[in-house]
């Protein structure tokens, strides 16, 4: 049994129009995706802006209403918990947000921010609570004195670590990380990624790692799904995706990663032009007549590609 199993998830936003505000159509933000995450695994969800990757994350944690599909967490269908705040599912799945400036309440002290999930689910005395918060802060490398400070007193990287401390407070089994480092500087990003890996090992956590940065995804994830127009175009392990991409969209994405070796500029350019040419020429082979992505086909044990 997988930790998380998503079956044919769809999230549509209605478009309203006319004088009566009737629904005249839908924006299909997520249009039928299925995947599983095993205990302790990291699945990378990669896509460009507007591909529906954040909506997927939000739908799983319940911040977005699901149009259709099933979400099974440890074998249990959790779509019935919609709107119920204290379900066991809420304990088991937590989220780390992208924007470290808007995801921490500026009026609350770090102590209250990190203790909030504890207060929701557990009855602890003040002293016990403080002890737990100190432990959590210690895990993310912050000193106990920081507990009485306010979010504005911290740098971006420290804020993200507070966000991580809050997310792991209830010992969740799955964390949805929505672009956790894209707002951070390179050296700070390295630090946050290291903490995320340490915590994963320590708590046997699974991550759904949502990112547009292929370099970071490469570093963090064993399995990767590439998303485009609300659907998966390719799914497989790291080696499959980076060394043997099959779908033209994946190829284009990988060709666009800047090469860190300036002497390979010409090569990269030639490769990119090739891929770009192939993209223009063979576009219709990879997309339906309505410009949609096909259903996934199994290529090998672990490698799926959207082909007709």
């Amino acid at each position, binding site marked *: 049994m997988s930790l998380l199993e998503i079956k044919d998830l769809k999230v549509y936003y209605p478009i309203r129009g006319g004088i009566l505000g009737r629904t005249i159509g839908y924006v299909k933000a997520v249009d039928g995706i299925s995947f599983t995450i095993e205990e302790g695994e990291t699945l990378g969800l990669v896509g*460009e*802006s507007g591909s529906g990757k954040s909506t997927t994350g939000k739908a799983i944690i319940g911040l977005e209403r699901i149009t259709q599909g099933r979400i099974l967490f440890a074998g249990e269908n959790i779509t019935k918990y919609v709107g119920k705040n204290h379900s066991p599912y809420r304990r088991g799945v937590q989220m780390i947000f992208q924007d470290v400036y808007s995801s921490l309440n500026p009026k609350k002290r770090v102590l209250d921010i990190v203790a909030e999930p504890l207060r929701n689910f557990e009855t602890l005395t003040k002293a016990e609570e403080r002890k737990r918060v100190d432990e959590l802060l210690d895990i993310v490398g912050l000193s106990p004195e920081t507990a009485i400070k306010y979010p504005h007193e911290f*740098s971006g*990287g420290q804020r993200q670590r507070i966000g991580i401390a809050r997310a792991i407070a209830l010992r969740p089994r799955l964390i949805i990380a929505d672009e956790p480092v894209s707002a951070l*500087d*390179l*050296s*700070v*990003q*390295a*630090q946050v*990624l*290291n903490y995320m*890996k340490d915590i994963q*090992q320590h708590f046997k956590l699974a991550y759904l790692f949502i990112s*547009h*940065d*292929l*370099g*970071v995804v*490469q*570093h*963090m994830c064993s399995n990767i799904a590439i998303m485009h127009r609300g659907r998966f175009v390719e799914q497989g392990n790291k080696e499959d995706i*980076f060394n043997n991409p099959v779908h033209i969209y994946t190829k*284009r*994405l990988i*060709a*666009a*990663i*800047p*090469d*860190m*070796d*300036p*002497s390979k*500029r010409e090569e*990269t*350019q030639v490769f*990119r032009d090739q891929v770009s040419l192939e993209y223009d020429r063979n576009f219709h082979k990879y997309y339906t007549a309505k410009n949609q992505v096909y259903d996934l086909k199994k290529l090998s044990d672990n490698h799926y590609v959207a082909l007709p």
Partner: protein
Amino acid sequence: MIEKELLKINNLVTSFRINGKYYPAVDGVSLRVKENDVFAIVGESGCGKSALALSIMNLHNPAFTKIEGKIFFKGQDLLKLNLTELNKIRGRDIGMIFQDPLTALNPLMKIGAQIEESLTFHTNLSGKEKQRRAMELLEGVGIENPSLTYDQFPHELSGGMRQRAMISIALACKPSLVIADEPTTALDVTIQAQILDLLKKLQKEIKSGIILITHDLGVVAEMADRVAVMYAGQIVETADVHELFSNPLHPYTRSLMASMPSKASGDTQEDRLHVIQGMVPSLLLQKRDGCRFSPRIPWIASYYHEENPVYHEVRPGHHVLCTCFRHFHFKEERRKSRVIT
């Protein structure tokens, strides 16, 4: 072929007034940009790279900013010009591309009108000619339907299209120097590749110099001819791009490169990225004497740092600040330390 010097900055100090005292965000920067050259300035947020860019264009608010030093553009000191003289250079000789096209473009003006604005200011073209030129520019930056985009507002365009529109504005008068401040940071990778490609192509066409300001080493590796690495308001290392990536010397440059996730990293669960100890000090607390990077590498003995760091030319064109680079090693590799001469 002798390349002419386009921009020469000598000992630039840009200070901001905070609580009545001035604190230098750019502290003694000197650099030279040649014609037809892409000069990249790379550093993390708060290192002063954007403050430097705005100083060149003199776009800081004079009420609380003090700019000292010399900025020679084609032999003319930009800091000595008055506003009228400066406005003749801004947009005509020096174009600027900002990071966030949605805030840099005027939301109430159509794209076409925004391109024509600088043409009106700097040329004597008639209305018809200006329109034709604007269409040409839009086509030149790869917009498929220029006549449609010409009549659109910024909010009607996608991020990549907006950035293209802004590039066309910056290039409207064929400036000899373009300052691009994080031109692709807000964009997706595929769009980033297209925009960088476009910049390279246009640069060859109009033979301008580009100052590329970025935090992304990948962008530097793709675009730059020469690179300056900035830390805490100072340039710590300058080199040719090939030299910098094959032989990075300053501890900060080496640390930055080690903290990049790469193809090889992350293969095993135990793989960790390099983390630079401590954090970038705030402008108010920054110490002004000695090697500014020394608090981040405390395991390097203090006598390896210079009291008054100067630039050392390691190879022709490769300058490194402070002597500590000769004795630097990462904390983990204490034993394998090698001495670079």
